[in-house]
């Protein structure tokens, strides 16, 4: 990264810290995507030491218990003093300060749910009197150290934070200079903030550019508006100007972009298409009279007669309000500039949209992995032997009702020893051990040969089978994935998912045709199956092909070589010991296909005998149960 670019990125990172210090609850938080290191430390030191030194920074450990987080009975103190002691949770203690979430990519969805409920309400339950709430507002600082593409902070949490900062591309000499912000500046900005207004036309521009980048969430718009105000406060102004709008758009909207804006001509029909379902014109008039008296025309233009006939509108808009149009251009440029170059290429293609969604799904898979490797189940009465862990809370719960009786009993027996009657007495009967539930879900991977002329029919059957399987398996919570062979490559068209909606969407636009790189496909399916196994689930492979390979592992044409490669990779599948269902899709059973099936130790089924998606799904379910 060039020095100049790196420098401004560093200043942006510092600016977000300052903004969060000014309006912690309003802006939600900052996600620092970076590995542990001096730059991250420097950023945090800027916040903690330089600009907001007096504030409370509460680290939330990964494996935090609900009682610690939300407050409640303090078991330790209670046992020590022999009477109930309540303590506020870490969140309540963070009121007015910040919570720091280390390794944010690993926080459990449960902890996230608890934190976000408090964030949403702005208050937390009183630890003792649970009918009451005490105010609780804080800013969140999340350190996301995820490396793999599917390893990042839960999208639910990300949604509640205004900013995301990537520090990894920066070098140390980008970070030698620092913005000159003092605690006094922050304190004054805080005082100024409530009086600052953001002009309605600015709000419109921000939302317009958010829409252009496919930022759908209303919360993003809200964050952007709040960021303009915090920026104005920081800059010692009493009102928001264009500069703040541009900066806020860059800081809040850039990382939320899901697509690149289409050029102006394409963009308009897009919007009008969305407008067609709006029968909300009843709502518009009163909103306009109340809020946009200064500029009623401007509001009319894009919304009411903006449907399609853009050419007629644009010059008019330009004549009346040149600056607003310019501002939108400026915003779009500012956001575009912030998107990393490689991501830009991705966003530009249609695939980019799907990919960004895949990113968020991947996290779920990752989180579910944790759940699979041992979800805590109800504890059992028993002794903590053989590696079993004692469930302290359960044990105490079990012991507690008997305390009065036991104490009276033991006093009678050994009056000298038990003078301090307040100690809790635990008997072997009370002991509870933790149990974990191992739930091995099945992931069915379809490898579909989408080549040649009969591709359409085969794909339709495979799609039917995928959907049938998903429809059948809510209760088992199984997942389905699909890899398609087409041309020279094997593409993952559906990463493992349990969502029928998602499967339908991904499979709807699946094209067919091209060569048959069977070997590449087998290798890809093997890789996916192994990775599923590592996550603690069981892969089941369904191969749908006529067995005629014509593209080799290197991606070159040639039947003989391709077949040899296919046989070779098939053996690898057998070696890995996967359960495989081989469906011969040719109109009559093929020797080649049967040979391949044998080589991978698969169950071989010619399609004429098993001719519907439903039948395939039943076979697969049967195989999975074995």
């Amino acid at each position: 990264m060039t020095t100049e670019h790196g420098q401004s990125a560093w200043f942006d990172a510092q600016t977000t810290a300052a903004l969060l210090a000014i309006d912690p609850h309003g802006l939600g938080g900052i996600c620092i995507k970076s590995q542990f290191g001096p730059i991250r430390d420097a950023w945090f030191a800027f916040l903690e030491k330089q600009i907001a030194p007096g504030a409370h920074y509460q680290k939330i450990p990964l494996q935090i218990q609900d009682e610690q987080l939300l407050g409640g009975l303090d078991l330790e103190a209670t046992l020590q003093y022999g009477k109930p002691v309540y303590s506020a949770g870490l969140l309540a203690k963070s009121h007015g300060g910040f919570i720091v979430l280390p390794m944010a990519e690993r926080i459990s969805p449960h902890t996230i749910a608890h934190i976000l409920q408090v964030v949403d309400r702005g208050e937390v339950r009183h630890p003792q009197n649970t009918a009451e709430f005490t105010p609780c507002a804080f800013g969140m600082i999340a350190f996301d150290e995820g490396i793999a593409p599917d390893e990042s902070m839960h999208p639910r949490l990300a949604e509640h934070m205004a900013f995301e900062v990537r520090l990894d591309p920066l070098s140390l000499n980008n970070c030698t200079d620092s913005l000159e912000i003092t605690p006094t500046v922050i304190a004054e900005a805080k005082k100024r903030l409530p009086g600052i207004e953001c002009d309605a036309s600015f709000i419109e521009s921000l939302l317009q550019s958010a829409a252009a980048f496919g930022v759908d969430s209303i919360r993003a718009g809200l964050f952007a508006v709040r960021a303009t105000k915090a920026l104005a406060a920081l800059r010692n102004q009493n009102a928001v100007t264009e500069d703040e709008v541009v900066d806020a758009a860059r800081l809040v909207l850039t990382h939320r972009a899901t697509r690149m804006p289409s050029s102006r001509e394409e963009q308009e029909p897009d919007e009008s298409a969305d407008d067609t379902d709006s029968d909300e014109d009843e709502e518009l008039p009163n909103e306009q009279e109340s809020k946009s008296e200064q500029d009623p025309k401007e509001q009319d233009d894009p919304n009411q007669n903006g449907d399609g006939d853009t050419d007629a509108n644009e010059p008019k808009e330009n004549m009346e309000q040149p600056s607003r149009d310019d501002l939108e251009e400026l915003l779009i440029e500012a956001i575009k500039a912030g998107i990393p170059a490689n991501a830009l290429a991705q966003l530009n293609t249609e695939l980019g949209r799907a990919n960004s969604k895949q990113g968020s799904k991947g996290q779920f898979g990752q989180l579910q992995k944790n759940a699979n490797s041992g979800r805590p189940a109800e504890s059992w009465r028993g002794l903590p032997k053989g590696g079993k862990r004692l469930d302290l809370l359960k044990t105490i719960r079990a012991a507690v009702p008997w305390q009065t009786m036991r104490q009276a009993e033991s006093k009678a027996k050994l009056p000298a020893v038990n003078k301090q009657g307040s100690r809790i007495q635990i008997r072997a009967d009370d002991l509870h051990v933790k149990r974990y539930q191992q739930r091995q879900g099945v992931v069915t991977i379809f490898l579909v040969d989408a080549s040649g002329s009969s591709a359409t029919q085969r794909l339709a059957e495979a799609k039917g089978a995928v959907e049938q399987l998903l429809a059948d398996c809510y209760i088992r919570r199984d997942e389905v994935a699909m890899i398609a062979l087409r041309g020279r490559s094997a593409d993952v068209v559906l990463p493992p998912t349990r969502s029928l909606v998602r499967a339908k969407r991904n499979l709807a636009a699946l094209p067919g045709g091209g060569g048959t790189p069977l070997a590449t496909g087998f290798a890809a399916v093997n890789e996916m199956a192994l990775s599923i196994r590592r996550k603690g689930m069981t892969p089941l492979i369904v191969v749908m092909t006529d067995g005629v390979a014509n593209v080799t592992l290197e991606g070159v044409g040639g039947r003989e070589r391709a077949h040899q490669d296919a046989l070779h990779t098939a053996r690898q599948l057998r070696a890995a010991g996967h359960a495989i269902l081989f469906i011969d899709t040719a109109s009559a059973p093929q020797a080649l296909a049967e040979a391949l099936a044998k080589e991978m130790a698969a169950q071989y089924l010619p399609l004429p005998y098993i001719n519907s998606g439903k039948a395939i799904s039943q076979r697969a379910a049967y195989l999975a149960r074995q």
Partner: protein
Amino acid sequence: MALNFPFTAIVAQDEMKLAIALSTIEPSIGGVLIFGDRGTGKSTTIRSLAALLPPMKVVTGCPYHCDPSAPTLCFACEARKTAGDKLKTDSVPVPVVDMPLGATEDRVVGALDIEKALSQGIKVFEPGLLAKANRGYLYIDEVNLLEDHLVDLLIDVSASGENVVEREGLSIRHPARFVLIGSGNPEEGELRPQMLDRFGLSVEVRTPQDLAQRIDIIKRRDAFERDPVGFLAQYEDSEAEFKEKILSSRKRLGKVTVGDDVLTLATKLCAQLGTDGLRGELTLMRGMRALAAFDGVRKATAEHLKRLAPLALRHRLRRNPLDDSSSTTRVERVLANFF
């Protein structure tokens, strides 16, 4: 208590607002399922609901909000009565209980009160969220991500209206009748059909795509944050009006009739859509009654059926792998044949 954004200031999302209004008029419709993206105002809408509900009469001090006029009271109140306690009556707001995704079974079902056990050595039941939600609303965000064992529990409790606790030497049953409101994003996971069935109505929300609406949402939110008291004052009249409308609809509800012709139509509709069981038809009937009452009329018509059918039926359709269209389209397609 933090101030909530007013219900009547929520822009668009008419279907969601209608479904919630109907569930307040006729709670036996059985809950609302809201499916949609993050940041569509689901939580805001649910939280704003509390302000619309008229307060209810309860037995003072009863953890389950017993209705003093009910024929049977909960075990705690009955015990007090037999002990010769004179039960007093209180007026309290209808509870709207948030159940977080990560709630433990202890917190949901209730558990042994450790405080009492420690300090007094007695076994006392500490009621959980199900008790708190009795006669009110239980809201579960991301309901499709809920742990399986909690789903089982909710499926059971919402059918029986009773929470049975058998744990830690406790043996207790208490009333737990509530309107279940769930929300979630279908892309993140499916909901079990049995759970789906517990919801009377379902709606699909999206962020308004219309720019004017989006701008309006932000502006109102901005105004609310700048001056919540002033903003609430601005909507005081419309809130009062809506509250009044709910009240009068409730009164009207008992007098609304649903003609046999409309019921026949409803049955045919369910048959053609292939919805499982009778619950679809029952929900249609109750929903039509509530909708007619909400409209201020005393007779439910085919028009009411048409408006209600997508809400009441779209989550009850059997999956059809050969039909790619969404369930909403499927309901609408069949409706088009009927009307």
